[in-house]
Structures are given as structure tokens and as C-alpha cells.
């Protein structure tokens, strides 16, 4: 709301003692103006309204002209200066290239694909058209045949560059024959930037958020305290369905095997399971137990995702878990017996204010599997999800905190 009088002070608030809050915030200065906080609050409560603050009606943000003209070097610099990019060089979105990209879908260029805000219920919600998405897809270096996947991702309205000071990331799991059709990599290096399709689709999703929805602008729509390297290229995981002993992820979410589905995930990210002491290499490896031990170390906020290479998935199956559902039940048993958890520890009894159980930045994403309390974020059972991808060249796998949200049919965007 323009004109709302906002008082800034040096955060964070949480974790500080009463005395620290008094000295550092109440008796401290506004980090922007350098002036004492409380006198500024008094001024905001008593200073007469300005003409600007008395305005009513509708205001619209100016997003600039429809086109820009210049030499390629000038335009690269202009797009960098205007923060239309992810700081890497782009393919300049000429009319010809965008028209070529639009051949990747039968949808009209002016059709609204989705709406997105910077996440965590913060900031304005922007809308973007098929053409807007195609422009970002060109800039990312994507091919027209990838456009349905990029449109499907954009249609979820999930920003991969969440405003939260936590430094969230987003990723996506892709199932179906489209994996082979567009050349997605699901073998060696599957979750990394080792194929054109995975890399440019991940980049395009970022650019849709940055441009289509004005996300990722440091200081306004991006506040990640330390940031997250997985915001550079969003993690696009094509499942290795052919070498997985389990049903594909999308089938386990209720879709048919012949459907092309993309499921968005959100969370902290993933890293090698070797990061945890539970995964100590030796001649005898009990991988189901290792995965369970890591799960039991995970925070409840995004639960746990296990990104298993096919050999590890085989170990799980051979360990007596014929299905992921059975394995999940076994993995979660101890945690569920301990009672519901929130991001701040054990859930509070019913009737108590749920606010102190809020995550440090914003609401959990939809589909988080939480047993939602009244008014938002409530007690939840920590989720456990399994995705199978990668090569068969070694017994390695990744774990992390990521939770699935929306699943979308890609073919609807052809």
C-alpha cells in the first residue's frame, strides 16, 4: 500500500533478549535514515498527511516500453542494468527469436499463464502471458520444444527465487516420455547443469520469476541473508524411470504412467548424503537405515527428500521395501511416534497461539503435507519423498529439505 508509514530498524528481532531489544532496536537507529527509531515512530504517528498520502484511486507501476533498440552490446548492458537478467549473458529476445520460441506451443501469446509473487505471501502478485514466458525462455537459451515445460512451471505460480531471508530454492521433478523427447538428462550428473534442456529450463524458470513477476530483486523482492547457490540454475530433476525399481514420482502422486508431469519442489536444497555422519563408507552398507538416520536429523519445515541413484534405490528395494510407500512408512515411524513437529520443535497443544510456530520467513508452500492449524502454519508430520535419478556408476545419493507442491500436466501447454 503506497503511503503506508513503515519504520525500519536493525533486525533481526528473534533470538534477542529483552535487554538486547531495548538497546539495539528501541534505543537504536533506523539503518536507512540513521536516526533514532522511537522518535521516528512518534513522528509517523503525529506528522500530518502529505498530499501524496491523501491520494486515492488506482496506481500502476511503469514497467517501461514494449521494446528497446540498440547494438547487441548495448542491449546486454541495458538488460543487466535493468536487472532483467540473472547476471549472466542472455540471448537477446528479438521479435524473430520470440516468434520462433512461440512455435513451441499452440497457446495464444496473450494468454495469461499464471500469477506469481516473491513468495512467503510478500509483495505484489504479477501476471505474465505466454509471450512473456517465451521472452524469458529465449533469454535463457531454451529451445521451442522446451517451452511447454517452461509454461507448465510458470503456470504453478511458484517462484524459484523466494523473497525469504532464509534463502529458499526451488526445483522440479519431471516424469514421462517428454524426458527423452527434449533430451533431459537423467543419468550421470542428472541434477547438475550437464544437459542443455535441464540447464536452460532451470534458467528460464528463474528468468520468468525475475521478469514476469519482478522477483529476485535484492533489497525489495529478495532478502536471502546468505543466499542459496541453487538459485542460479533451478534444479531440474528428470527421473530415471527406466532404471528405478519404483513407480515414477508422478504416478505415486496419482498421475498416469503415460502423462508428462512436472512437479515443483521448494526448500533448502539437496547435497551429498556423505555430508551426514550416518553415511560412513564401509564394506557393509545398510542404505535404508542410513536414509532413515538422515531423515531423523532433518528439520520439519520442508521434511526430507531423498534423491537416490538407481543402485541405492535397488538397495532400498532389496532391503525389504517393495514400494516407496512402504519405505516411507518405515522411515517416518520413529519421528511420527515422537509427535507432530513444527519448524520450531514439538507442536504446541491445540488452543495455544500458533504464531510462535511460524517458520522464520513466511508460510510453508501449498501441498506441504502439514496438518494445518487454524489460521495458517500448524503442526505437521515431517514429509519424506523419494526421487530416483542419476547414473549407475556408484552408490551415491543426495538428501535434503525439499517438499513437493503443485504437479502440472505439461501436455496442456503444448
Amino acid at each position, binding site marked *: 500500500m503506497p503511503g503506508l508509514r513503515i519504520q525500519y530498524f536493525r533486525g*533481526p528481532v*528473534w533470538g534477542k533478549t529483552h535487554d538486547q531489544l531495548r538497546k539495539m532496536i528501541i534505543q537504536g537507529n533506523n539503518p536507512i535514515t540513521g536516526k533514532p527509531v522511537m522518535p521516528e515512530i512518534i513522528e509517523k504517528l503525529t506528522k500530518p498527511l502529505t498530499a501524496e498520502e491523501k491520494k486515492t484511486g*488506482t496506481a500502476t507501476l511503469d514497467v517501461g516500453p514494449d521494446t528497446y533498440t*540498440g547494438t*547487441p552490446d548495448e542491449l546486454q548492458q541495458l538488460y543487466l542494468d535493468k536487472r*532483467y537478467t540473472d547476471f549472466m549473458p542472455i540471448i537477446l529476445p528479438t521479435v524473430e527469436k520470440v516468434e520462433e520460441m512461440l512455435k513451441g506451443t499452440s497457446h495464444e501469446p496473450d494468454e495469461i499463464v499464471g500469477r506469481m509473487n516473491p513468495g512467503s505471501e510478500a509483495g505484489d502478485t*504479477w501476471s505474465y502471458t505466454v509471450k512473456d514466458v517465451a521472452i524469458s525462455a529465449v533469454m535463457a537459451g531454451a529451445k521451442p520444444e522446451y517451452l511447454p515445460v517452461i509454461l507448465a512451471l510458470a503456470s504453478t505460480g511458484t517462484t524459484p527465487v523466494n523473497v525469504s531471508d532464509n534463502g529458499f530454492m526451488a526445483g522440479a521433478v519431471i516424469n514421462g516420455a517428454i524426458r527423452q523427447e527434449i533430451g533431459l538428462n537423467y543419468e550421470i550428473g542428472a541434477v547438475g547443469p550437464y544437459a542443455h534442456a535441464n540447464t536452460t529450463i532451470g534458467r528460464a524458470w528463474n528468468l520468468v520469476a525475475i521478469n514476469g513477476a519482478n522477483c529476485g530483486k535484492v533489497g525489495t523482492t529478495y532478502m536471502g541473508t546468505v543466499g542459496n547457490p541453487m538459485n542460479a540454475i533451478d534444479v531440474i530433476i528428470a527421473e530415471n524411470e527406466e532404471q528405478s525399481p519404483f513407480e515414477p514420482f508422478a504416478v505415486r502422486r496419482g498421475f498416469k504412467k503415460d502423462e508428462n508431469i512436472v512437479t515443483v519442489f521448494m526448500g533448502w536444497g539437496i547435497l551429498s548424503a556423505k555430508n551426514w555422519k550416518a553415511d560412513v563408507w564401509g564394506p557393509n552398507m545398510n542404505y535404508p537405515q542410513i536414509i532413515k538416520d538422515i531423515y531423523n536429523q532433518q528439520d520439519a519445515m520442508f521434511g526430507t527428500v531423498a534423491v537416490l541413484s538407481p543402485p541405492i534405490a535397488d538397495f532400498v528395494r532389496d532391503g525389504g521395501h517393495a514400494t516407496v510407500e512402504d519405505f516411507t512408512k518405515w522411515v517416518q515411524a520413529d519421528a511420527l511416534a515422537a509427535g507432530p513437529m513444527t519448524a520450531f520443535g514439538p507442536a504446541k497443544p491445540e488452543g495455544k497461539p500458533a*504464531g510462535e510456530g511460524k517458520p522464520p520467513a513466511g508460510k510453508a508452500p501449498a501441498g506441504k503435507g502439514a496438518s494445518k492449524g487454524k489460521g495458517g502454519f500448524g503442526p505437521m508430520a515431517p514429509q519424506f519423498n523419494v526421487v530416483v535419478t542419476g547414473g549407475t556408476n556408484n552408490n551415491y545419493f543426495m538428501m535434503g529439505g525439499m517438499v513437493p507442491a503443485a504437479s502440472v500436466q505439461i501436455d496442456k501447454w503444448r
Partner: protein
Amino acid sequence: MKLRIAVIAALCAGLVCGVCVTGNAQVAAAAKVTVLNPMGTPPPIQLKQMAERPTTLDGKTIYLVNTGFVGTERLMEVMEEWFKENHPKTTIVSKRNPSMDVADKALWAEIQEKADGVVIGLGH
């Protein structure tokens, strides 16, 4: 001899041709192109006039609202102490909104009716 002349001619042709290609590339590099603005559409923003301000807080009632984010309760307690020490003629009413993204309609109605000003704790 004829062969030698032919080879020299071919080399010369290649040289000229090479100059032409380089020249075209330089022209192409300097050529201007038109590109599309990638930005989406921001929502229209409905402007609301702020409440008229009192000239002094003496004799006025200020509500301090804790929206429930972790740590805010303690911050608002410290702020209430500051008001009591520095503005003893101001009545401070501390309230708790159920959460930061759900409005307590009864509380906002009460504020509209009874408050001369409100400080809402949003951050963390």
C-alpha cells in the same frame, strides 16, 4: 606459368573475399537490433488514504499489535515500556493478532473505534 598465375589469382580472390567477410561482420556487430521487454504485468494498486494524524499523543490511545512472528511479542513488550516511560499521558493497549497473514476482524474493528494510532509489528 599459367598454373602459377591461376594460384595467385585464387589467393588474391580469397584475400578480397576474406576482407569482404570481415567487413560484413564488423557492420553486423554494430547494427542495432530491437528486443522485447521481458517484464510481466504488475497489479493495479488501490490507493487508500491514511488516517488523519493527531498533533500530539497526549491523552490519545495507541494500540501495539503483535502479529505473532517469533520474537515480536518480546519486542512489543519493550516498546510498550518505552511508551510508558516517555509518553506517560498516552494510553497503550497491547494486542495479539492470531497470525501475520490472517486479520482478526474484531481486533481491526476495535482499533478503528478506539485507537488514535496503531503500531503493527511485522518483522522478525
